[in-house]
């Protein structure tokens, strides 16, 4: 009976599924239309002639390309639509004229749309990475200080500053902007391996092995001799039984001794109690003396505080009456606007760079003793005789202990309000 019911259900299921299949074949249901449209899109758009692979362009017309993107899909395959969208990205940031078609770039080399700006990690400002750049200008690491005798402290490498005297006699410092110059430089570390070096290592391992064998043959013979001695002790096991009997006797004797001891202890305890009483009596007298002395001391301490006299001093009535005054003295501002630019933003080793430092008195007072100081990076070598200044000045090149140089221009005349000037010099990239 149960089998018949199951067969009926199976027949019903087959009939219903058959009807559904016929309906789906006759009428365009929704999933089927999506399937056809996706394939049609693939075939109508075909494959783009230029495909972005990393930062490169790829010609898919290559017949033997191992890339699956050149495979033309048939009607029984559903291609990932997302993949086709990736292939229709814009072409390459690299100059197309300088690049040729690469053979057989795998599809897994595709990393997304091309980058139009240099990649930088989040949270880090450009330029990135800094080890590919040579910086010049600014006042990094430690802030530069200039003393009254014009001695400069904390002038780090790559720093460029200007300091001047105001009419009040103060020394002010202005910093230039920081210029990044893309100039990576490479070197290498070399190691040469030969057969002689490996032979030397083999000798070391050969010396270690025989020493272990000698140590193993010494101690084992003596341990076997000790086992023979221990077998003789097994004969004396009867003595251990006698020893147990002796222990019982000792226990009995110990119990008796304890009873006797308790009797003897009683008078001793009485003596001890008597002595305690005597001691307590003697201590009471001493304690009473100490209490009296303590009372005397507390009286003295309270008298020393003079709390009533201190209270008036703690009332700071002056603070309530005081008033803060803020004075703004109307004086002229002494300012020097200084900027530094380079002739190029990238350089290979051996190329020349020209730097221009422009400074202008943007305050409302004249300034004097204007001095421009430029600490060159060690990657830059100053070209002798290449400096020029629009104002009369004295120029100095001070070598440092790290094979770099400090350039210094001391402007002879004071700079009036609105007056500007510039100094230029050339450096060779090491």
């Amino acid at each position, binding site marked *: 009976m149960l089998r018949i019911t199951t067969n009926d259900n199976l027949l019903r299921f087959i009939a219903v599924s058959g009807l559904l299949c016929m309906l789906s074949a006759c009428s365009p249901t929704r999933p089927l239309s999506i399937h056809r449209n996706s394939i049609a899109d693939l075939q109508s758009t075909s494959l783009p002639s230029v495909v972005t692979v*990393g*930062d*490169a362009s790829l010609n898919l017309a290559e017949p033997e390309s191992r890339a699956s993107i050149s495979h033309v899909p048939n009607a029984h395959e559903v291609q990932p639509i997302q993949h086709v969208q990736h292939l229709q990205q814009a072409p390459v*940031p*690299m*100059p197309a004229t*300088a*690049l*040729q078609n*690469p*053979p*057989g770039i*795998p599809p*897994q*080399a595709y*990393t997304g749309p091309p980058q*139009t*700006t*240099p*990649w*930088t*990690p989040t949270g880090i400002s450009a330029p*990135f*990475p*800094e*080890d*590919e*750049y*040579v910086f010049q200008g600014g006042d990094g690491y430690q802030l530069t200080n200039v003393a009254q005798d014009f001695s400069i402290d904390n002038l780090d*490498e790559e720093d460029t500053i200007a300091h001047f005297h105001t009419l009040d006699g103060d020394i002010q410092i202005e910093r230039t902007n920081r210029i990044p110059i*893309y*100039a*990576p*430089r*490479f*070197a*290498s*570390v*070399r*190691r*040469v*391996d*030969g057969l002689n*070096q490996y032979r030397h290592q083999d000798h070391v391992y050969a010396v270690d092995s025989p020493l272990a064998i000698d140590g193993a043959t010494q101690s084992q013979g003596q341990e076997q001799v000790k086992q023979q001695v221990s077998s003789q002790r097994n004969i004396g096991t009867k003595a251990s039984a006698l020893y147990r009997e002796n222990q019982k006797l000792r226990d009995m004797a110990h119990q008796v001794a304890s009873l006797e001891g308790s009797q003897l202890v009683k008078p001793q305890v009485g003596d001890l109690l008597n002595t305690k009483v005597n001691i307590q009596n003697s201590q009471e007298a001493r304690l009473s003396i100490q209490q009296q002395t303590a009372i005397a001391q507390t009286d003295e301490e309270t008298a020393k505080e003079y709390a009533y006299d201190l209270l008036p001093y703690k009332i700071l009535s002056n603070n309530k009456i005081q008033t803060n005054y803020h004075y703004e003295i109307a004086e002229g501002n002494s300012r020097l606007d200084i900027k530094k630019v380079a002739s190029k*933003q*990238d350089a*290979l*080793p*051996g*190329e*020349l760079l020209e730097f221009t430092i422009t400074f202008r008195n943007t305050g409302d007072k004249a300034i004097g003793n204007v001095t421009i100081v430029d600490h060159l*990076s*060690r*990657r830059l*070598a100053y070209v002798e005789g290449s400096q020029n200044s629009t104002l009369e000045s004295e120029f100095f090149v001070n070598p440092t202990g*790290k*094979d*770099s140089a400090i350039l210094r221009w001391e402007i002879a005349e004071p700079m009036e309000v609105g007056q500007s000037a510039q100094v230029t010099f050339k450096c*060779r990239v*090491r």
Partner: protein
Amino acid sequence: MLLRGGPVPGYFQPTQIRCPQGGSIAIATNGTFAGGTPSVLNAGLLIGSPYRLKITEIPGLPGVELYPTVELLDRLHPPVGLEIRFPIPIHLTSQELRMAAEGLFVTRVIYLEDPTNPVVIQDQANRQRFLDVRFNEDPLRVADQLGRPMAILRIGSRQPRMDRQTERFMFSSPPVRSIMPPQQSSIPADKLERAIISTPSIGRLR
């Protein structure tokens, strides 16, 4: 190390491989060595994939063929449009090729110098500075202390077997992008400052 410097998969890092004047360089492509280029090979290489090179017509070593390998470890991040102007230089010197032909194995790690602690000498475009380390020192570790390792060059005397192992010898021929030569410097060679290139005195690692 490969994760340092941003997304590296799929990026073809421009690389300039130089051999002595008169030599020929070819790189494994599609299971074979394409026609060699004289002295200088500019190519875009993937990071992390070893490439097999073929050096022929070596000056002073007639008939000798060497098959060094190049593996890039990191990439550069130049401003947009300057990728080809600043390739990673890899130089094969006559001395190293001669040592490899005699049975020695030369490992050279090319690194990007730390600009805050550079060696104060004038570099030349046709010569790459190198620092020799002893056989018990790791050149990759030393290069990591001096800067950022960019590539590993290995030169030996192993010859390929033309059988089913050939594809393995060529590391399955990773994809290569051929690049036109970079723009030459506008400064003539005779104007470049000449300096004595010597091995810098940098402390050895123990």
